[in-house]
Protein backbone atom coordinates (compact mmCIF):
# COMPACT_ATOMS: atom_id res chain seq x y z
CA UNK A 1 0.00 0.00 0.00
CA UNK A 2 1.39 3.36 -0.95
CA UNK A 3 1.65 6.46 1.12
CA UNK A 4 -1.33 8.03 -0.58
CA UNK A 5 -3.65 5.18 0.33
CA UNK A 6 -2.33 5.19 3.85
CA UNK A 7 -3.11 8.89 4.25
CA UNK A 8 -6.55 8.34 2.80
CA UNK A 9 -7.27 5.53 5.22
CA UNK A 10 -6.10 7.62 8.16
CA UNK A 11 -8.30 10.49 7.00
CA UNK A 12 -11.33 8.23 7.03
CA UNK A 13 -10.38 7.01 10.50
CA UNK A 14 -10.02 10.57 11.72
CA UNK A 15 -13.42 11.45 10.31
CA UNK A 16 -14.97 8.49 12.15
CA UNK A 17 -13.25 9.40 15.43
CA UNK A 18 -14.32 13.00 15.10
CA UNK A 19 -17.87 11.91 14.41
CA UNK A 20 -17.88 9.81 17.57
CA UNK A 21 -16.45 12.68 19.64
CA UNK A 22 -19.10 14.99 18.23
CA UNK A 23 -21.87 12.56 19.11
CA UNK A 24 -20.56 11.97 22.62
CA UNK A 25 -20.42 15.71 23.13
CA UNK A 26 -24.01 16.10 21.95
CA UNK A 27 -25.20 13.39 24.32
CA UNK A 28 -23.25 14.92 27.23
CA UNK A 29 -24.72 18.34 26.65
CA UNK A 30 -28.24 16.88 26.69
CA UNK A 31 -27.48 14.55 29.61
CA UNK A 32 -26.12 17.20 31.96
CA UNK A 33 -28.47 18.43 34.68
CA UNK A 34 -30.38 21.61 33.88
CA UNK A 35 -32.14 22.95 30.83
CA UNK A 36 -30.35 22.20 27.52
CA UNK A 37 -31.87 25.28 25.88
CA UNK A 38 -30.40 27.60 28.49
CA UNK A 39 -27.05 25.98 27.76
CA UNK A 40 -26.99 27.10 24.15
CA UNK A 41 -28.99 30.33 24.32
CA UNK A 42 -27.81 33.25 26.39
CA UNK A 43 -30.41 33.91 29.12
CA UNK A 44 -29.90 37.66 28.72
CA UNK A 45 -30.86 37.69 25.02
CA UNK A 46 -34.02 39.42 23.82
CA UNK A 47 -36.86 36.90 23.22
CA UNK A 48 -36.80 37.48 19.46
CA UNK A 49 -33.06 36.84 19.16
CA UNK A 50 -33.35 33.81 21.41
CA UNK A 51 -36.15 32.39 19.28
CA UNK A 52 -34.15 32.90 16.07
CA UNK A 53 -31.12 31.21 17.56
CA UNK A 54 -33.22 28.35 18.89
CA UNK A 55 -34.75 27.81 15.48
CA UNK A 56 -31.38 27.79 13.73
CA UNK A 57 -30.12 25.18 16.19
CA UNK A 58 -33.36 23.21 16.20
CA UNK A 59 -33.68 23.39 19.96
CA UNK A 60 -37.50 23.32 19.80
CA UNK A 61 -37.47 20.06 17.82
CA UNK A 62 -37.41 16.45 19.09
CA UNK A 63 -34.01 15.11 20.17
CA UNK A 64 -33.33 13.16 16.99
CA UNK A 65 -33.93 16.20 14.78
CA UNK A 66 -31.82 18.27 17.16
CA UNK A 67 -28.96 15.86 16.54
CA UNK A 68 -29.27 16.28 12.77
CA UNK A 69 -29.36 20.05 13.19
CA UNK A 70 -26.30 19.79 15.38
CA UNK A 71 -24.35 17.81 12.78
CA UNK A 72 -25.33 20.30 10.10
CA UNK A 73 -24.36 23.23 12.29
CA UNK A 74 -20.96 21.80 13.15
CA UNK A 75 -20.32 21.15 9.48
CA UNK A 76 -21.26 24.71 8.52
CA UNK A 77 -19.55 26.29 11.51
CA UNK A 78 -22.71 27.62 13.12
CA UNK A 79 -21.98 26.72 16.72
CA UNK A 80 -23.96 29.33 18.58
CA UNK A 81 -23.21 32.68 20.11
CA UNK A 82 -20.82 33.13 23.02
CA UNK A 83 -22.53 34.30 26.22
CA UNK A 84 -19.56 36.36 27.23
CA UNK A 85 -18.41 37.93 23.96
CA UNK A 86 -21.82 38.08 22.30
CA UNK A 87 -20.28 37.04 18.99
CA UNK A 88 -20.53 33.79 17.02
CA UNK A 89 -18.13 31.38 18.73
CA UNK A 90 -16.66 30.21 15.46
CA UNK A 91 -15.40 33.73 14.69
CA UNK A 92 -13.79 34.04 18.10
CA UNK A 93 -12.11 30.67 17.87
CA UNK A 94 -10.91 31.07 14.29
CA UNK A 95 -9.33 34.27 15.50
CA UNK A 96 -7.52 32.34 18.28
CA UNK A 97 -6.57 29.26 16.29
CA UNK A 98 -3.44 30.69 14.57
CA UNK A 99 -2.03 31.77 17.95
CA UNK A 100 -2.42 28.28 19.37
CA UNK A 101 -1.00 26.61 16.28
CA UNK A 102 1.97 29.00 16.33
CA UNK A 103 2.86 28.30 19.95
CA UNK A 104 2.07 24.58 19.74
CA UNK A 105 4.07 23.77 16.59
CA UNK A 106 7.12 25.87 17.44
CA UNK A 107 7.29 24.44 20.94
CA UNK A 108 7.00 20.84 19.75
CA UNK A 109 9.48 21.29 16.91
CA UNK A 110 12.06 23.09 19.01
CA UNK A 111 11.80 20.71 21.95
CA UNK A 112 12.08 17.68 19.65
CA UNK A 113 15.14 19.19 17.95
CA UNK A 114 16.74 20.03 21.28
CA UNK A 115 15.92 16.57 22.63
CA UNK A 116 17.41 14.85 19.59
CA UNK A 117 20.52 17.01 19.69
CA UNK A 118 21.21 16.56 23.40
CA UNK A 119 20.17 12.89 23.39
CA UNK A 120 22.68 12.24 20.63
CA UNK A 121 25.45 13.78 22.70
CA UNK A 122 24.39 11.95 25.86
CA UNK A 123 24.45 8.58 24.09
CA UNK A 124 27.76 9.33 22.44
CA UNK A 125 29.35 10.18 25.80
CA UNK A 126 27.70 7.23 27.50
CA UNK A 127 28.69 6.78 31.14
CA UNK A 128 30.68 10.00 31.24
CA UNK A 129 29.83 13.06 33.25
CA UNK A 130 28.09 14.79 30.31
CA UNK A 131 25.76 11.84 29.98
CA UNK A 132 24.90 11.73 33.67
CA UNK A 133 24.29 15.46 33.80
CA UNK A 134 22.10 15.47 30.70
CA UNK A 135 20.06 12.45 31.78
CA UNK A 136 19.43 13.76 35.26
CA UNK A 137 18.67 17.23 33.90
CA UNK A 138 16.19 15.76 31.44
CA UNK A 139 14.50 13.71 34.14
CA UNK A 140 14.31 16.76 36.34
CA UNK A 141 12.85 19.10 33.70
CA UNK A 142 10.45 16.42 32.52
CA UNK A 143 8.84 16.07 35.93
CA UNK A 144 8.48 19.79 36.72
CA UNK A 145 4.88 20.87 37.27
CA UNK A 146 4.09 23.01 34.26
CA UNK A 147 1.89 25.81 35.68
CA UNK A 148 4.33 26.22 38.53
CA UNK A 149 7.29 26.47 36.17
CA UNK A 150 5.32 29.06 34.20
CA UNK A 151 4.75 31.11 37.37
CA UNK A 152 8.45 30.86 38.27
CA UNK A 153 9.43 31.97 34.76
CA UNK A 154 7.12 34.98 35.00
CA UNK A 155 8.33 35.78 38.48
CA UNK A 156 11.99 35.61 37.53
CA UNK A 157 12.33 36.68 33.89
CA UNK A 158 9.45 39.11 33.71
CA UNK A 159 9.22 40.50 37.23
CA UNK A 160 12.69 40.31 38.77
CA UNK A 161 14.90 40.69 35.70
CA UNK A 162 12.30 42.34 33.50
CA UNK A 163 13.54 40.99 30.19
CA UNK A 164 10.17 39.87 28.92
CA UNK A 165 6.59 41.14 29.17
CA UNK A 166 4.57 39.50 31.94
CA UNK A 167 1.57 38.38 29.91
CA UNK A 168 -0.24 38.69 26.61
CA UNK A 169 0.80 38.26 23.02
CA UNK A 170 1.25 41.80 21.71
CA UNK A 171 1.94 45.26 23.09
CA UNK A 172 -0.90 47.51 21.89
CA UNK A 173 1.33 50.57 21.33
CA UNK A 174 3.41 48.77 18.71
CA UNK A 175 0.32 47.59 16.85
CA UNK A 176 -1.49 50.92 16.96
CA UNK A 177 1.54 52.82 15.69
CA UNK A 178 0.99 53.21 11.92
CA UNK A 179 4.75 53.59 11.34
CA UNK A 180 5.59 50.14 12.68
CA UNK A 181 6.53 47.71 9.94
CA UNK A 182 5.84 43.96 9.91
CA UNK A 183 9.30 43.33 11.34
CA UNK A 184 8.59 45.38 14.45
CA UNK A 185 5.30 43.53 14.89
CA UNK A 186 6.89 40.11 14.41
CA UNK A 187 9.62 40.97 16.91
CA UNK A 188 6.97 42.12 19.36
CA UNK A 189 5.14 38.78 19.11
CA UNK A 190 8.43 36.90 19.47
CA UNK A 191 9.24 38.95 22.55
CA UNK A 192 5.93 37.93 24.10
CA UNK A 193 6.27 34.35 22.95
CA UNK A 194 9.73 33.80 24.46
CA UNK A 195 8.61 32.92 27.97
CA UNK A 196 5.73 30.55 27.14
CA UNK A 197 7.93 28.92 24.53
CA UNK A 198 10.79 28.46 26.97
CA UNK A 199 8.42 26.95 29.53
CA UNK A 200 7.02 24.45 27.05
CA UNK A 201 10.44 23.50 25.71
CA UNK A 202 11.83 22.94 29.20
CA UNK A 203 8.93 20.64 30.03
CA UNK A 204 8.96 18.68 26.79
CA UNK A 205 12.57 18.24 25.68
CA UNK A 206 13.42 15.89 28.56
CA UNK A 207 11.30 12.96 27.41
CA UNK A 208 12.57 13.33 23.83
CA UNK A 209 16.14 13.39 25.11
CA UNK A 210 15.61 10.15 27.03
CA UNK A 211 13.99 8.46 24.03
CA UNK A 212 16.74 9.65 21.68
CA UNK A 213 19.46 8.53 24.07
CA UNK A 214 18.22 4.97 24.41
CA UNK A 215 17.45 4.66 20.73
CA UNK A 216 20.89 6.02 19.80
CA UNK A 217 22.52 3.50 22.15
CA UNK A 218 20.68 0.70 20.33
CA UNK A 219 21.65 2.07 16.93
CA UNK A 220 25.31 2.33 17.86
CA UNK A 221 25.37 -1.45 18.30
CA UNK A 222 24.24 -2.04 14.70
CA UNK A 223 26.49 -3.64 12.13
CA UNK A 224 26.47 -0.71 9.75
CA UNK A 225 28.02 1.51 12.39
CA UNK A 226 30.85 -1.00 12.78
CA UNK A 227 31.21 -0.94 9.00
CA UNK A 228 31.40 2.84 9.06
CA UNK A 229 34.09 2.65 11.73
CA UNK A 230 35.99 0.03 9.73
CA UNK A 231 35.93 2.34 6.71
CA UNK A 232 37.81 4.80 8.88
CA UNK A 233 35.16 7.51 8.83
CA UNK A 234 35.47 10.37 11.22
CA UNK A 235 33.71 9.88 14.54
CA UNK A 236 31.60 12.98 14.02
CA UNK A 237 30.43 11.80 10.61
CA UNK A 238 29.40 8.46 12.06
CA UNK A 239 27.54 10.14 14.88
CA UNK A 240 25.74 12.81 12.90
CA UNK A 241 25.21 11.21 9.51
CA UNK A 242 25.05 7.49 10.16
CA UNK A 243 23.65 6.91 13.63
CA UNK A 244 21.58 9.96 14.52
CA UNK A 245 19.08 10.01 11.61
CA UNK A 246 18.01 6.41 12.23
CA UNK A 247 18.00 6.84 15.97
CA UNK A 248 15.73 9.88 15.70
CA UNK A 249 12.80 7.83 14.35
CA UNK A 250 11.44 6.71 17.74
CA UNK A 251 11.44 10.37 18.76
CA UNK A 252 8.86 11.01 16.03
CA UNK A 253 6.71 8.21 17.46
CA UNK A 254 7.14 9.66 20.92
CA UNK A 255 6.04 13.08 19.70
CA UNK A 256 2.89 11.46 18.38
CA UNK A 257 2.25 9.63 21.64
CA UNK A 258 2.66 12.76 23.74
CA UNK A 259 0.45 14.99 21.61
CA UNK A 260 -2.45 14.90 24.05
CA UNK A 261 0.00 15.77 26.80
CA UNK A 262 1.32 18.70 24.79
CA UNK A 263 -2.20 20.00 24.24
CA UNK A 264 -2.89 19.86 27.98
CA UNK A 265 0.36 21.69 28.61
CA UNK A 266 -0.46 24.18 25.90
CA UNK A 267 -3.79 25.04 27.53
CA UNK A 268 -2.12 25.53 30.92
CA UNK A 269 0.64 27.67 29.44
CA UNK A 270 -1.81 29.79 27.49
CA UNK A 271 -3.85 30.35 30.63
CA UNK A 272 -0.96 31.38 32.85
CA UNK A 273 0.62 33.64 30.22
CA UNK A 274 -2.80 34.88 29.00
CA UNK A 275 -1.79 33.88 25.49
CA UNK A 276 -4.95 34.35 23.40
CA UNK A 277 -5.31 30.76 22.19
CA UNK A 278 -7.98 28.07 22.05
CA UNK A 279 -6.84 26.37 25.24
CA UNK A 280 -7.14 29.53 27.26
CA UNK A 281 -10.54 30.19 25.70
CA UNK A 282 -11.67 26.71 26.79
CA UNK A 283 -10.50 27.26 30.37
CA UNK A 284 -12.11 30.70 30.38
CA UNK A 285 -15.42 29.48 28.97
CA UNK A 286 -15.59 26.62 31.46
CA UNK A 287 -15.08 28.92 34.42
CA UNK A 288 -17.68 31.36 33.09
CA UNK A 289 -20.26 28.72 32.10
CA UNK A 290 -20.08 29.88 28.49
CA UNK A 291 -21.33 26.56 27.09
CA UNK A 292 -21.40 27.28 23.33
CA UNK A 293 -17.83 28.54 23.48
CA UNK A 294 -16.70 25.55 25.56
CA UNK A 295 -18.28 23.08 23.17
CA UNK A 296 -16.80 24.65 20.05
CA UNK A 297 -13.37 25.12 21.65
CA UNK A 298 -13.31 21.46 22.61
CA UNK A 299 -14.27 20.34 19.11
CA UNK A 300 -11.57 22.49 17.55
CA UNK A 301 -8.97 21.16 19.97
CA UNK A 302 -10.06 17.64 19.03
CA UNK A 303 -9.50 18.51 15.37
CA UNK A 304 -6.06 19.96 16.16
CA UNK A 305 -5.04 16.78 18.02
CA UNK A 306 -6.31 14.49 15.27
CA UNK A 307 -4.63 16.46 12.49
CA UNK A 308 -1.37 16.66 14.43
CA UNK A 309 -1.53 12.88 14.88
CA UNK A 310 -1.95 12.45 11.14
CA UNK A 311 0.99 14.76 10.42
CA UNK A 312 3.21 12.76 12.77
CA UNK A 313 2.15 9.47 11.16
CA UNK A 314 2.79 10.74 7.66
CA UNK A 315 6.11 12.20 8.72
CA UNK A 316 7.08 8.85 10.15
CA UNK A 317 6.12 6.99 6.99
CA UNK A 318 8.03 9.55 4.95
CA UNK A 319 11.15 9.39 7.12
CA UNK A 320 11.29 5.62 7.36
CA UNK A 321 11.03 4.03 3.91
CA UNK A 322 10.92 0.59 5.53
CA UNK A 323 7.42 1.36 6.80
CA UNK A 324 4.89 0.24 4.24
CA UNK A 325 1.31 0.34 5.26
Amino acid at each position, binding site marked *: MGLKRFVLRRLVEIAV*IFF*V*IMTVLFV*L*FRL*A*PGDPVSRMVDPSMTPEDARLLMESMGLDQPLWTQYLYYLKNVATGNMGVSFHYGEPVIDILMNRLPNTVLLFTTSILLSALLGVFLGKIAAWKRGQRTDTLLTIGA*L*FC*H*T*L*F*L*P*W*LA*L*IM*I*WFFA*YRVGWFPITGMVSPDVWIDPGAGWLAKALDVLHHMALPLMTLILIHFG*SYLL*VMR*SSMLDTLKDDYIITARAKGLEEKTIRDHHAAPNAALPVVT*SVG*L*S*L*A*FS*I*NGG*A*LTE*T*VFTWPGI*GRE*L*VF*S*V*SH*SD*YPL*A*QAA*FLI*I*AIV*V*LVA*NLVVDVLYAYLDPRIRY
Partner: protein
Amino acid sequence: MTDANLPSPKTGTTPGMAAGRALPHWVDRFLGGWRVYRKNTIGRIGMALLVLFALMATTSFIPQWVDPMYHPMTGVDPQISYSTGPSLRHWLGTDFIGRDIFSQLLAGARIAFMVGISSALISILFGTTIGMVAGYAGKHTDLILMRLADMIMVMPTLLVVLLLSALFGQLNIWIIVLMIALFRWPGVARVIRSQTLSLRHRPFIEAARVAGASHLRIIFRHILPNVMPLALLYMTFRVTSAIIIEAALAFLGFGDPGTVSWGMMLQWVWKTGHMFQAPYWMLPPGICISLITMAFYMTGRAMDDVLDPRLREEETTP
Protein backbone atom coordinates in the same frame (compact mmCIF):
# COMPACT_ATOMS: atom_id res chain seq x y z
CA MET B 1 17.46 -16.92 44.65
CA THR B 2 16.88 -20.43 45.86
CA ASP B 3 17.86 -22.38 42.81
CA ALA B 4 16.64 -25.66 44.21
CA ASN B 5 13.09 -24.41 43.80
CA LEU B 6 13.06 -23.03 40.27
CA PRO B 7 10.03 -20.80 39.70
CA SER B 8 7.86 -22.42 37.10
CA PRO B 9 6.55 -20.17 34.32
CA LYS B 10 3.00 -21.23 35.03
CA THR B 11 2.47 -19.08 38.06
CA GLY B 12 -0.75 -19.68 39.84
CA THR B 13 -1.40 -23.12 38.45
CA THR B 14 0.58 -24.80 41.21
CA PRO B 15 0.61 -22.50 44.21
CA GLY B 16 0.04 -25.35 46.59
CA MET B 17 3.03 -27.36 45.46
CA ALA B 18 5.59 -24.68 46.24
CA ALA B 19 3.85 -23.67 49.43
CA GLY B 20 5.05 -26.83 51.12
CA ARG B 21 8.48 -25.20 51.20
CA ALA B 22 9.46 -22.02 53.03
CA LEU B 23 7.98 -19.19 50.96
CA PRO B 24 5.22 -18.92 48.42
CA HIS B 25 6.57 -18.54 44.94
CA TRP B 26 5.48 -14.95 44.42
CA VAL B 27 7.15 -13.77 47.63
CA ASP B 28 10.34 -15.35 46.39
CA ARG B 29 10.02 -13.59 43.06
CA PHE B 30 9.31 -10.31 44.79
CA LEU B 31 12.37 -10.62 47.04
CA GLY B 32 14.51 -11.46 44.02
CA GLY B 33 13.22 -8.34 42.28
CA TRP B 34 13.87 -6.25 45.35
CA ARG B 35 17.47 -7.42 45.42
CA VAL B 36 17.97 -6.13 41.86
CA TYR B 37 16.02 -2.96 42.59
CA ARG B 38 18.17 -2.08 45.59
CA LYS B 39 21.27 -1.80 43.40
CA ASN B 40 19.64 0.85 41.22
CA THR B 41 20.64 4.36 42.28
CA ILE B 42 17.70 6.06 40.58
CA GLY B 43 15.35 3.58 42.21
CA ARG B 44 16.88 4.21 45.63
CA ILE B 45 16.49 7.97 45.33
CA GLY B 46 12.91 7.56 44.16
CA MET B 47 12.06 5.21 47.00
CA ALA B 48 13.65 7.53 49.58
CA LEU B 49 11.58 10.45 48.30
CA LEU B 50 8.44 8.36 48.40
CA VAL B 51 9.12 7.39 52.00
CA LEU B 52 9.58 11.07 52.83
CA PHE B 53 6.25 11.98 51.23
CA ALA B 54 4.53 9.06 52.93
CA LEU B 55 5.86 10.40 56.21
CA MET B 56 4.44 13.82 55.36
CA ALA B 57 1.07 12.30 54.59
CA THR B 58 0.92 10.28 57.81
CA THR B 59 1.97 13.20 59.99
CA SER B 60 -0.51 15.55 58.34
CA PHE B 61 -3.00 15.04 61.18
CA ILE B 62 -0.62 16.22 63.88
CA PRO B 63 -0.65 20.04 63.42
CA GLN B 64 -4.41 20.33 63.92
CA TRP B 65 -4.16 18.29 67.14
CA VAL B 66 -1.54 20.66 68.47
CA ASP B 67 -3.69 23.71 67.87
CA PRO B 68 -6.90 24.06 65.81
CA MET B 69 -5.46 27.15 64.13
CA TYR B 70 -3.13 24.79 62.23
CA HIS B 71 -6.03 23.06 60.52
CA PRO B 72 -5.14 23.24 56.79
CA MET B 73 -8.61 24.26 55.65
CA THR B 74 -10.48 25.97 58.46
CA GLY B 75 -7.73 26.97 60.89
CA VAL B 76 -7.02 30.68 60.78
CA ASP B 77 -4.44 32.38 62.97
CA PRO B 78 -6.46 34.95 64.97
CA GLN B 79 -3.56 37.42 64.96
CA ILE B 80 -2.92 37.33 61.21
CA SER B 81 -5.25 38.23 58.38
CA TYR B 82 -2.81 38.48 55.48
CA SER B 83 0.08 36.47 54.08
CA THR B 84 3.18 36.49 56.27
CA GLY B 85 6.62 34.99 55.75
CA PRO B 86 8.16 32.08 57.64
CA SER B 87 8.36 32.39 61.42
CA LEU B 88 8.65 30.09 64.44
CA ARG B 89 4.90 30.12 64.82
CA HIS B 90 4.34 29.32 61.14
CA TRP B 91 7.34 27.48 59.70
CA LEU B 92 6.52 28.27 56.10
CA GLY B 93 4.42 31.37 56.70
CA THR B 94 0.70 31.85 56.24
CA ASP B 95 -1.55 32.27 53.24
CA PHE B 96 -3.79 35.25 52.45
CA ILE B 97 -6.25 34.67 55.28
CA GLY B 98 -3.74 33.47 57.87
CA ARG B 99 -3.79 29.70 57.39
CA ASP B 100 -0.60 27.79 58.07
CA ILE B 101 1.21 26.85 54.84
CA PHE B 102 3.24 24.03 56.38
CA SER B 103 0.18 22.12 57.56
CA GLN B 104 -1.44 22.68 54.15
CA LEU B 105 1.66 21.19 52.57
CA LEU B 106 1.37 18.08 54.75
CA ALA B 107 -2.32 17.74 53.95
CA GLY B 108 -1.44 18.07 50.26
CA ALA B 109 0.80 15.00 50.48
CA ARG B 110 -2.15 13.00 51.79
CA ILE B 111 -4.37 14.14 48.91
CA ALA B 112 -1.65 13.46 46.35
CA PHE B 113 -1.21 9.87 47.54
CA MET B 114 -4.93 9.34 47.75
CA VAL B 115 -5.62 10.69 44.27
CA GLY B 116 -2.56 9.12 42.66
CA ILE B 117 -2.87 5.64 44.05
CA SER B 118 -6.63 5.20 43.88
CA SER B 119 -6.83 6.58 40.37
CA ALA B 120 -3.91 4.44 39.21
CA LEU B 121 -5.45 1.34 40.78
CA ILE B 122 -8.73 1.88 38.96
CA SER B 123 -7.12 2.59 35.61
CA ILE B 124 -4.84 -0.43 35.99
CA LEU B 125 -7.85 -2.57 36.82
CA PHE B 126 -9.63 -1.39 33.67
CA GLY B 127 -6.54 -1.46 31.50
CA THR B 128 -5.42 -4.91 32.55
CA THR B 129 -8.85 -6.47 32.21
CA ILE B 130 -9.54 -4.88 28.83
CA GLY B 131 -6.04 -5.64 27.57
CA MET B 132 -6.26 -9.29 28.58
CA VAL B 133 -9.73 -9.73 27.13
CA ALA B 134 -8.72 -8.04 23.87
CA GLY B 135 -5.52 -10.04 23.54
CA TYR B 136 -7.13 -13.33 24.48
CA ALA B 137 -10.35 -13.01 22.53
CA GLY B 138 -8.80 -11.52 19.38
CA LYS B 139 -10.87 -10.87 16.25
CA HIS B 140 -13.72 -8.38 16.53
CA THR B 141 -13.53 -7.91 20.29
CA ASP B 142 -9.87 -6.99 19.96
CA LEU B 143 -10.52 -4.63 17.07
CA ILE B 144 -13.37 -2.81 18.79
CA LEU B 145 -11.61 -2.51 22.15
CA MET B 146 -8.37 -1.28 20.63
CA ARG B 147 -10.12 1.26 18.44
CA LEU B 148 -11.87 2.53 21.55
CA ALA B 149 -8.51 2.72 23.29
CA ASP B 150 -7.01 4.68 20.37
CA MET B 151 -9.87 7.10 20.47
CA ILE B 152 -9.56 7.77 24.19
CA MET B 153 -5.79 7.93 23.94
CA VAL B 154 -5.80 10.95 21.62
CA MET B 155 -8.04 12.95 23.94
CA PRO B 156 -6.29 15.39 26.27
CA THR B 157 -7.53 14.14 29.66
CA LEU B 158 -7.21 17.44 31.48
CA LEU B 159 -9.38 19.28 28.98
CA VAL B 160 -11.97 16.50 28.89
CA VAL B 161 -12.35 16.59 32.67
CA LEU B 162 -12.48 20.37 32.48
CA LEU B 163 -15.37 20.24 30.02
CA LEU B 164 -17.19 17.69 32.15
CA SER B 165 -16.86 19.90 35.19
CA ALA B 166 -18.40 22.73 33.15
CA LEU B 167 -21.40 20.56 32.40
CA PHE B 168 -21.86 18.80 35.71
CA GLY B 169 -20.77 21.55 38.06
CA GLN B 170 -18.13 21.43 40.77
CA LEU B 171 -16.65 17.93 40.92
CA ASN B 172 -16.11 15.91 44.06
CA ILE B 173 -12.53 14.63 44.54
CA TRP B 174 -13.61 11.00 44.05
CA ILE B 175 -15.38 11.85 40.81
CA ILE B 176 -12.18 13.51 39.64
CA VAL B 177 -10.23 10.38 40.57
CA LEU B 178 -12.69 8.21 38.67
CA MET B 179 -12.64 10.45 35.59
CA ILE B 180 -8.86 10.47 35.43
CA ALA B 181 -8.86 6.69 35.73
CA LEU B 182 -11.49 6.30 33.01
CA PHE B 183 -9.37 8.25 30.56
CA ARG B 184 -6.01 6.77 31.44
CA TRP B 185 -6.52 3.04 30.86
CA PRO B 186 -5.80 2.79 27.10
CA GLY B 187 -2.00 2.93 27.38
CA VAL B 188 -2.05 0.11 29.93
CA ALA B 189 -4.52 -1.92 27.88
CA ARG B 190 -2.26 -1.74 24.81
CA VAL B 191 0.79 -3.04 26.65
CA ILE B 192 -1.12 -5.76 28.49
CA ARG B 193 -2.75 -6.80 25.24
CA SER B 194 0.56 -7.31 23.45
CA GLN B 195 1.87 -9.25 26.44
CA THR B 196 -1.27 -11.41 26.40
CA LEU B 197 -0.84 -12.03 22.67
CA SER B 198 2.61 -13.43 23.31
CA LEU B 199 1.27 -15.65 26.10
CA ARG B 200 -1.79 -16.91 24.30
CA HIS B 201 -0.16 -19.80 22.48
CA ARG B 202 2.26 -20.87 25.18
CA PRO B 203 1.98 -24.56 26.12
CA PHE B 204 0.64 -23.95 29.61
CA ILE B 205 -2.31 -21.99 28.28
CA GLU B 206 -3.03 -24.65 25.67
CA ALA B 207 -2.78 -27.26 28.41
CA ALA B 208 -5.25 -25.41 30.58
CA ARG B 209 -7.63 -25.18 27.66
CA VAL B 210 -7.34 -28.89 26.91
CA ALA B 211 -7.93 -29.61 30.59
CA GLY B 212 -11.29 -27.86 30.16
CA ALA B 213 -10.66 -24.54 31.89
CA SER B 214 -13.16 -21.83 31.01
CA HIS B 215 -12.04 -18.64 29.24
CA LEU B 216 -12.52 -16.58 32.38
CA ARG B 217 -10.47 -19.03 34.38
CA ILE B 218 -7.65 -18.99 31.84
CA ILE B 219 -7.62 -15.20 31.76
CA PHE B 220 -7.67 -14.57 35.49
CA ARG B 221 -5.88 -17.66 36.75
CA HIS B 222 -3.20 -18.19 34.12
CA ILE B 223 -2.68 -14.99 32.16
CA LEU B 224 -3.18 -12.45 34.94
CA PRO B 225 -0.25 -13.59 37.13
CA ASN B 226 2.04 -13.28 34.13
CA VAL B 227 1.03 -9.75 33.17
CA MET B 228 0.85 -8.58 36.78
CA PRO B 229 4.43 -7.24 37.04
CA LEU B 230 3.96 -5.19 33.88
CA ALA B 231 0.67 -3.82 35.22
CA LEU B 232 2.41 -2.88 38.45
CA LEU B 233 5.09 -1.02 36.49
CA TYR B 234 2.46 0.93 34.59
CA MET B 235 0.76 1.75 37.83
CA THR B 236 3.69 3.92 38.89
CA PHE B 237 3.38 5.93 35.67
CA ARG B 238 -0.36 6.25 36.13
CA VAL B 239 0.12 7.55 39.66
CA THR B 240 2.25 10.39 38.33
CA SER B 241 -0.18 11.34 35.64
CA ALA B 242 -3.13 11.25 38.03
CA ILE B 243 -1.33 13.52 40.50
CA ILE B 244 -0.40 15.97 37.76
CA ILE B 245 -3.91 16.09 36.30
CA GLU B 246 -5.52 16.63 39.69
CA ALA B 247 -2.99 19.35 40.49
CA ALA B 248 -3.52 21.07 37.15
CA LEU B 249 -7.27 20.88 37.56
CA ALA B 250 -7.08 22.38 41.03
CA PHE B 251 -4.67 25.01 39.77
CA LEU B 252 -7.19 26.11 37.15
CA GLY B 253 -9.85 26.39 39.86
CA PHE B 254 -11.80 23.20 39.19
CA GLY B 255 -10.62 21.11 42.08
CA ASP B 256 -12.74 19.89 44.96
CA PRO B 257 -13.17 22.98 47.14
CA GLY B 258 -13.29 20.76 50.22
CA THR B 259 -9.74 19.52 49.86
CA VAL B 260 -6.36 21.19 50.28
CA SER B 261 -4.18 19.86 47.50
CA TRP B 262 -0.90 21.29 46.29
CA GLY B 263 -2.56 22.40 43.08
CA MET B 264 -5.16 24.23 45.14
CA MET B 265 -2.43 26.02 47.11
CA LEU B 266 -0.81 27.16 43.86
CA GLN B 267 -4.16 28.40 42.65
CA TRP B 268 -4.57 30.51 45.79
CA VAL B 269 -1.12 32.03 45.29
CA TRP B 270 -1.87 32.76 41.67
CA LYS B 271 -5.46 33.99 41.98
CA THR B 272 -4.79 36.23 44.97
CA GLY B 273 -1.86 37.82 43.13
CA HIS B 274 0.80 36.78 45.63
CA MET B 275 3.15 35.24 43.09
CA PHE B 276 5.44 38.26 43.09
CA GLN B 277 5.45 38.95 46.82
CA ALA B 278 5.33 35.54 48.41
CA PRO B 279 7.95 33.10 47.11
CA TYR B 280 7.76 31.28 50.49
CA TRP B 281 4.18 30.44 49.58
CA MET B 282 4.63 29.74 45.87
CA LEU B 283 7.73 27.54 45.99
CA PRO B 284 6.84 24.68 48.41
CA PRO B 285 3.72 23.26 46.71
CA GLY B 286 5.35 23.34 43.27
CA ILE B 287 8.48 21.68 44.54
CA CYS B 288 6.37 18.99 46.20
CA ILE B 289 4.34 18.23 43.07
CA SER B 290 7.48 18.09 40.96
CA LEU B 291 9.36 15.92 43.45
CA ILE B 292 6.57 13.40 44.01
CA THR B 293 6.16 13.09 40.25
CA MET B 294 9.88 12.55 39.92
CA ALA B 295 9.89 10.02 42.76
CA PHE B 296 7.19 7.85 41.18
CA TYR B 297 8.79 8.22 37.77
CA MET B 298 12.20 7.15 39.10
CA THR B 299 10.64 4.20 40.93
CA GLY B 300 8.96 3.21 37.70
CA ARG B 301 12.17 3.40 35.71
CA ALA B 302 14.00 1.30 38.24
CA MET B 303 11.20 -1.28 38.30
CA ASP B 304 11.39 -1.29 34.54
CA ASP B 305 15.03 -2.37 34.75
CA VAL B 306 14.12 -5.07 37.23
CA LEU B 307 11.33 -6.51 35.12
CA ASP B 308 12.89 -6.46 31.71
CA PRO B 309 15.80 -4.42 30.48
CA ARG B 310 14.42 -4.41 26.97
CA LEU B 311 11.15 -2.77 27.94
CA ARG B 312 11.28 0.98 27.74
CA GLU B 313 9.04 3.23 29.72
CA GLU B 314 6.09 5.04 28.28
CA GLU B 315 5.61 8.79 28.69
CA THR B 316 4.55 10.21 32.06
CA THR B 317 1.84 12.12 30.37
CA PRO B 318 -1.06 13.53 32.26
